[in-house]
């Protein structure tokens, strides 16, 4: 009886988790974090200072993406955020450096400039009916050009320390210094000693960037879910005509969305300046794409009306986590590009399956996970096999071309091998082809099982997965075995999905 209650509870929690728009992003973050932690042996990925470094570097793009979320929720788009961010950063740094006005005045001017640009965009879109895509595409070009023009595209000297308050300033550094010079007494001294002792382990990266980032998102989430502005933006995004007929001033609230978005870009500029070496007009290039990606990864619909602020937060963190983790893991540059794209696909894929609310879709998704895991495991011997076969083929065809008298630049001959190289390739091919074929058969079997979605077949495939894992360990490729064990779990879990769906529906109706 209690086992059943526990199981029901687990199902309820699982269902309520997947009802959240941001579950895809969070799941991707968790999977990726564990994967990176496993790869980066000895280098602490899950270290608090590293996690805070990720948040610190998410701050600027995060605030920009936060503003973008409002516009996308209202079924609009703002392609100019990167250019606006660059312009505000350049102009603010420029007047703070050369006009002799206090830094806080310059910052205020920058934020106002952002608001004015947003008001201009919003007026053109909401009151003149111009398409948002076109207005902000034009803005992308106009503001980037204006930024270069107004500052001569030159870098400023190092900015005044007021800017550090938006970035690298550490609220605990003062206490630490006072402690080190022995100025503290009593409770403060104990606290100072605590900060100093845990400086490298925790407090070192506890900086303003991160604090502003988190506070900004909490405020924005409160505004969007509790205030009229937020409710109206959702209403406009899901049905503009209906909202107007319901008496909402749709034009005014659309205008507000663009003003807030550009001000978000302006605040993002300040956060960026707080960590950057100087101000320059080429900051923020391609940020519009990263911001839109973060919003979409966070589960917000590009057609408006559906999404959350917290989802965007997760989306931004996921993007920066990829950068940070792949750098720490020292993955090769071109692989980083491929992996980044794949992770984004996975996050959005989870979101789409989640929305479908159908047991079969979830089963297929789980099945695809098992197939991909099997494929990755197969790649361990297969990649060696394929690259050897290709190298051998390239060697042979280069020989043929050389004999035919083709002329090539020296480095293009690097594909030619010497005798021992050719021999080496032959041994690799002989060693790997049988295992490769066997694992490919496993992948084919998994595909068949996912198409059929049959209970017995799934369990049988689960067993085959485990057997293949044992075979891999026997063949000295133990590193890939955990992939197959995970795959076995996914395979044997397939038949449980429809049951969980049924049970969740029963529980739902029982609770009214």
């Amino acid at each position, binding site marked *: 009886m209690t086992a059943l209650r526990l199981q029901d509870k687990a199902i309820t929690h699982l269902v309520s988790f997947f009802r959240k728009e941001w579950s895809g992003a969070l799941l991707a973050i968790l999977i990726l974090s564990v994967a990176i932690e496993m790869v980066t042996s000895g*280098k*602490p*990925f899950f*270290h608090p*200072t*590293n996690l805070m*470094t*990720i948040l*610190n*570097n998410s701050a600027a793009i995060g605030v920009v993406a936060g503003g973008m979320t409002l516009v996308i929720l209202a079924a609009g788009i703002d392609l100019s955020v990167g250019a606006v961010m660059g312009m505000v950063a350049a102009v603010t740094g420029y007047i703070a450096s050369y006009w002799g006005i206090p830094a806080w005045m310059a910052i205020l001017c920058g934020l106002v400039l952002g608001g004015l640009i947003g008001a201009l965009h919003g007026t053109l879109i909401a009151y003149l009916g111009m398409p948002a895509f076109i207005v902000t595409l034009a803005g992308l070009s106009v503001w980037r050009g204006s930024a*270069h023009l107004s500052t001569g*595209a*030159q*870098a400023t000297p190092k900015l005044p320390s007021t800017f550090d308050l938006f*970035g*690298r300033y*550490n609220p605990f*550094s003062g206490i630490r210094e006072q402690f080190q010079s022995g100025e503290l007494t009593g409770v403060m001294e104990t606290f100072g000693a605590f900060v100093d002792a845990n400086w*490298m382990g925790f407090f*070192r*990266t506890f*900086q303003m960037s991160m604090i502003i980032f988190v506070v900004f998102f909490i405020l924005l989430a409160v505004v969007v879910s509790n205030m009229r502005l937020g409710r109206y933006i959702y209403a406009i995004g899901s049905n503009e005509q209906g909202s107007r007929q319901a008496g909402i001033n749709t034009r005014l609230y659309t205008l507000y969305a663009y003003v807030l978005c550009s001000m978000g870009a302006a605040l993002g500029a300040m956060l*960026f300046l707080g*960590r*950057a*070496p*100087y101000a*320059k*007009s*080429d*900051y923020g*290039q391609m940020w519009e794409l990263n911001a839109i990606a973060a919003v979409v990864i966070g589960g917000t619909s590009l057609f408006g009306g559906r999404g959350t602020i917290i989802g965007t937060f997760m989306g931004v963190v996921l993007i*920066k986590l990829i*950068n*940070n983790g792949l*750098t*720490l893991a*020292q993955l090769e*540059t*071109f692989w*980083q590009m491929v992996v980044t794209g794949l992770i984004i696909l996975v996050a959005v894929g989870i979101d789409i399956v989640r929305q479908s609310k159908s047991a079969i879709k979830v089963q297929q998704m789980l099945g695809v996970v098992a197939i991909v895991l099997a494929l990755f495991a197969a790649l361990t011997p297969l990649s060696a096999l394929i690259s050897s076969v290709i190298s051998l083929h390239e060697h042979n065809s280069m020989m043929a071309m050389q004999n035919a008298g083709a002329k090539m*630049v020296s480095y293009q001959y690097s594909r030619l091998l010497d005798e021992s190289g050719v021999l080496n390739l032959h041994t690799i091919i002989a060693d790997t082809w049988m295992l490769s074929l066997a694992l490919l058969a496993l992948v084919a079997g998994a595909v068949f099982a996912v198409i059929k979605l049959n209970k017995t077949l799934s369990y049988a495939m689960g067993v085959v997965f485990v057997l293949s894992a044992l075979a891999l360990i026997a063949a000295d490729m133990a590193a890939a075995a955990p992939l197959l064990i995970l795959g076995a779990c996914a395979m044997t879990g397939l038949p449980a999905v429809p049951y969980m769906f049924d049970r969740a529906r029963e529980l739902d109706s029982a609770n009214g």
Partner: protein
Amino acid sequence: MMKMNKLIGVIAAGALLSSSVYADSIGYITKSATNSGWMMINQGAADAAAEAGVDLITVGPTFQGDLSSQLEVFENLLAQGVNAIAIAPVDSSGIAPAVQDAMDSGVAVVAIDTGVTGAKVTSFVATDNYAVAKVQGAYAATLVNDGDAIIYVTGNQAQSTGQERRNGFTEAFKTARPNSEILEVPTEWNSAQAQEGVEAILNARDDVKMVANAWDGGTMGSKAAMENLGLSAGDVLLVGFDGATDAVEAMEAGWVHADTAQMLYQMGYQGIKTAVAASQGKEVSARIDTGFFLVTPSTAQAYKDLVGIK
């Protein structure tokens, strides 16, 4: 009638345009108008054209690394009938067919900074990036002990400039310090990427002694990363490439310990000089090496005097 007027207007404008380039004119296709290094090259190009008394038609891409817009600009310049084209290719092999066409039709093409793979050019005016990076790597090796971990901030690895600098540095450094680990921070010539990556690694590992950079935008990004982590000048040594003004200033403040400077101004100046000479039918050298300068704290003043940094 309206249409007719418009047509005449267009023809008149076209005639004006073509007559304006009737004087000796050189097309100059730059890689960037906003990167501080490129601004020095562009200045050299402008000065050389003024000295030679030719029109310099300067065009830059909308953003760094955009091949399609560079190809378009190249064809437009050819159609306008310029006497020679000086170009800094964003893609060494992508630009080759267009260069081949120009050379076949008798227009001299001078490649600046980055070479062309797969087509012959009249002259290639550049620093030998690979050779200079080897000097950078060999000198950097003298600043650390064997076994110390270092970071190398790369440039775009899809471009020959980025590849040559990375390969040159790594080979020379590894030869001198075989037991040192080189951690890489990949970038596409973007100083924010450099700052973020260096910050992540410096925070995770306290055994890193030096950050070497493929260009000085990266050097400034690395310096910001150090400041963000509360490190002071000299805690981790910085090594740059380019000899940009801000990096030389950072050297005087104790942050940067070596910088292999390309003679950027010379690159632009010599490039346009060569293009003018070739367009007048004079014999020009097929490869002009504009040299480099190893800037260290002791030679910084000499370098500043040489290139005119005040």
